[in-house]
């Protein structure tokens, strides 16, 4: 290996690392606020990338139907719950309408826009609008009822959700892979190093999003309320912060970051309906570097995972997944010696 290969691998690793960082941050965010270990994070990546791919082909993607179905279920669940508790009908119907409004508008938009083959940027925004609301809906249907269950039960729910979403991905997108067009075809050469416009976009968007999150949590009241929920659920509730609302918001953010990651890597690799799982899990491995608690450590971990993967695939390409996922073991070992016992639950 010479310097030029090393630098290419480093650039490659850093590009993937930026994506993993987004996913790792979403994982930490969701865990801190809801105690859910969000295995289906990766499904939003595939949903994002493949929804765009179908829009490119002028078709209405299946995720639109999923969005409508989940919204209907959530609204029905709310209405049933409200009737059981004897709440007034008009208020119940109004809240059901609120649940349904955004999904119906987005679906109508998708219906109208799909055959028109609008510009890539518009389709990307539409994709984000389709996939992001899936997050809160998944939270409402799968997790909300179990919000006070143990981490273990929530983890098993996550795995079930992952199964269901992966299977639905197969129904929506088929078994074939897709590769999206690049957002920016430019190439920049510096010696042996060649930087694509797409890589620049990945870096730019990732950094911008991380900054935006930082500002959101540090400066906005909503963000501070989320942080309060993460520290102490009961305390936050006593302060008038809705932990249910916090959970939905965190899942919305996670779905948004997942879909965005999908849009970003769509042009760099061929994605299949089940590719998201491994991508999400790599974000996960990164999040474990920070014990599912520290955002900066998760970001650094993500960079490390990206580099490990790119160098691993150079030296032993068949074993790159083995290398990436086995690294979790020494990381856990290191954490266990750093932090020792910590297992008093409920």
């Amino acid at each position, binding site marked *: 290996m010479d310097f030029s290969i090393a630098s290419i691998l480093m650039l490659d690793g850093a590009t993937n690392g930026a994506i993993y960082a987004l996913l790792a941050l979403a994982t930490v965010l969701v865990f801190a606020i809801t105690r859910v*270990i969000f*295995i289906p994070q990766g499904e939003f990546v595939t949903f994002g990338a493949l929804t765009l791919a179908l829009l490119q082909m002028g078709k209405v993607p299946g995720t639109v139907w999923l969005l409508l179905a989940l919204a209907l279920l959530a609204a029905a669940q709310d209405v049933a719950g409200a009737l059981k508790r004897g709440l007034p009908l008009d208020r119940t119907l109004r809240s059901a309408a609120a649940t349904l409004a955004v999904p119906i508008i987005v679906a109508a938009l998708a219906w109208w826009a799909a055959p028109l083959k609008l510009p890539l940027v518009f389709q990307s925004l539409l994709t984000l609008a389709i996939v992001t609301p899936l997050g809160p809906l998944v939270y409402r249907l*799968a997790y909300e*009822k*179990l919000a006070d*269950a*143990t*981490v*273990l*039960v929530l*983890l*098993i*729910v996550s*795995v*079930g*959700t*992952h*199964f*269901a*979403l*992966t*299977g*639905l991905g*197969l*129904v929506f997108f*088929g*078994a074939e892979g897709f590769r999206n067009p690049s957002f920016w075809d430019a190439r920049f050469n510096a010696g042996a190093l060649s930087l694509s416009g797409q890589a620049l976009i990945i870096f730019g968007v990732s950094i911008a999003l991380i900054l935006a999150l930082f500002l959101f949590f540090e400066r906005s009241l909503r963000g501070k309320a989320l942080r309060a929920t993460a520290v102490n659920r009961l305390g936050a509730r006593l302060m008038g912060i809705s932990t249910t609302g916090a959970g939905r918001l965190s899942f919305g953010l996670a779905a948004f970051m997942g879909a965005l990651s999908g849009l970003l890597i769509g042009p760099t690799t061929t994605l299949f309906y089940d590719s998201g799982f*491994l991508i999400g*899990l790599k974000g*996960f*491995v990164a999040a*474990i570097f920070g014990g599912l608690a520290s955002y900066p450590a998760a970001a650094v971990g993500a960079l490390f995972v990206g580099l490990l993967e790119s160098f691993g695939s150079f030296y032993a390409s*068949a*074993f790159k*997944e*083995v290398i990436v*996922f*086995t690294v*979790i*073991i020494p990381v*856990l*070992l290191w*954490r*266990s010696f750093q*932090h*020792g*016992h*910590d*297992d*008093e*639950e*409920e």
Partner: protein
Amino acid sequence: MRRTFLIGFVLVLALLPQLPVPEFWITQANYIGLYTLVVTGLVLLTGIAGLTSFGQAAFVGLGAYTAAYLTLTHGVSPWLTVWAGLAFTFVAALVLGWITLRMSGHYLPLATIAWGLSLYYLLGNIDALGKYDGLLGVPALRFFGIELNTGRSFFYLLWTIVVLAALAANNLLDSRAGRALRAVKGGSTMAEAMGVNSFRTKVTAFVLAALLASISGWLFAHFQRTVNPTPFGLNMGIEYLFMAVLGGVGHVWGALMGASVVVILKDQLQVLLPKLLGGSGNYEIIVFGILLVLVLQYARDGLWAFIEARLPRVQRKVDWADAPALAERARPPHGEVVLDLKDARKEFGGLVAVNDVSFQVRAGEILGLIGPNGAGKSTTFNLVTGVLPATRGSITLLGERIDALSSRAIASRGVSRTFQHVKMIPGMTVLENVALGAHLRGSRGVAAAMLRLDRAEERRLLKEAEKQLRRIGMQGSMHELAGNLALGPQRLMEIARALCADPTLLLLDEPAAGLRLKEKQALADVLRQLRDEGIAILLVEHDMDLVMGLVDRIVVMEFGTKLIEGTPEEVQASPAVRAAYLGTEH
């Protein structure tokens, strides 16, 4: 009834291959058996010990590949390869468990996801193991000259092993080791206070589950006669957990139920769903995923719980009347200093919870520790019992420094406690909960329990538990589930459990809270009797009538500092104590 059920089940199993049922059914039954074996391990791990694993399929793979590789390339007899597979699995599970089980419960499942994925890709990329094509032509098992090369002949071997494993698991649950397994669920403070090595117990549960999976893998290799990585991937690992949750993680027979339902359902769905949705693929995972979530939302105890609720509850037969009593510790003579705190201090960051507190407790004495809420009484308790390490100062038990020892080591030296918030195992009977207190007075482990070689010792432990319950006046409810008791009796049960450890020093944290007057008087009588037997008692209690009439001396704490020490009369007369409790006039 239960016994008839079991005998009937075994009879059906024995007859099934003899009947003219289609071969397909036999195959399905064999898969159910293979899966049940794995899921039985998951029940022990998830339902009993409160841990979980998504990597059981990988352990199945380890067993299967070891068997296939060794028989195919080295011609080793399958009856030897099973041990090789078990040895491999043992080491792998031990390493994984040892690394992850020191930390919070959710790190183990995460590590098993990574492990399941890694092993899948590893198996799929090793040339010697045939990469993703796997190894073909694994020979059938031979059993005393009979070749088990048909589904029907294999059925008998498989189901014998399955039934034996289920019986062994049930035996384990009803034993000293089984109580320890249940005790580690949901936190280790109580388990450690009972002298259970919670880390080791968790590792044991994980290794045990892995070994069952490995045996299933060995059988799988010789049943399918071929191995490839797919059935050992993460998806299958998740499916095993699905079977466990669906069947009911709390019951060994839930494993059988879960495996049966999933195998049958999967077969139906694989025909139905492609017709419905068009195309092909494993659409059944959509249904499995949604079902898994719904089961957790609406029927957390799984399907078996519905059957269990209809079966009569069998009361344990009292068979320990003639068992010899357990050996007792030599008691220190009356008046000897048992516990000696010298300037014990505990800081949490900048907060001093216990500020250089010193006092002594003597054998045959009850020392009351009182003070307003937040005075540091419970923290003092936690320092003495080793739940928290002291920042400074010394704590001595019968002349031996114990402030650097673990909670378990302190328990083994004769310190027993109850908890301010009752910590028990609600799903076990009162008797079994109390017997947990005698954990350190027995020694038989997992293997002995599975093979029922522990019965002599078990009878002695249960006899002791009954004796302590009798002493506390609770022998009448010994067969009730602990979770069904009211708060008062639960506290009394904790005292009986503490007494089961044959303590030199007994620490009681608000034992009278929730008791009625009569129960309080009975409790006071028991404590007096224990004092007369030479036990040293440290009592934290808010009921002043009880404290003043019972204890020999009182230590009053306020804001982490010792305010005064003296007889009840001296304390009652002290203006400083009144000020602490009632405030001062300004």
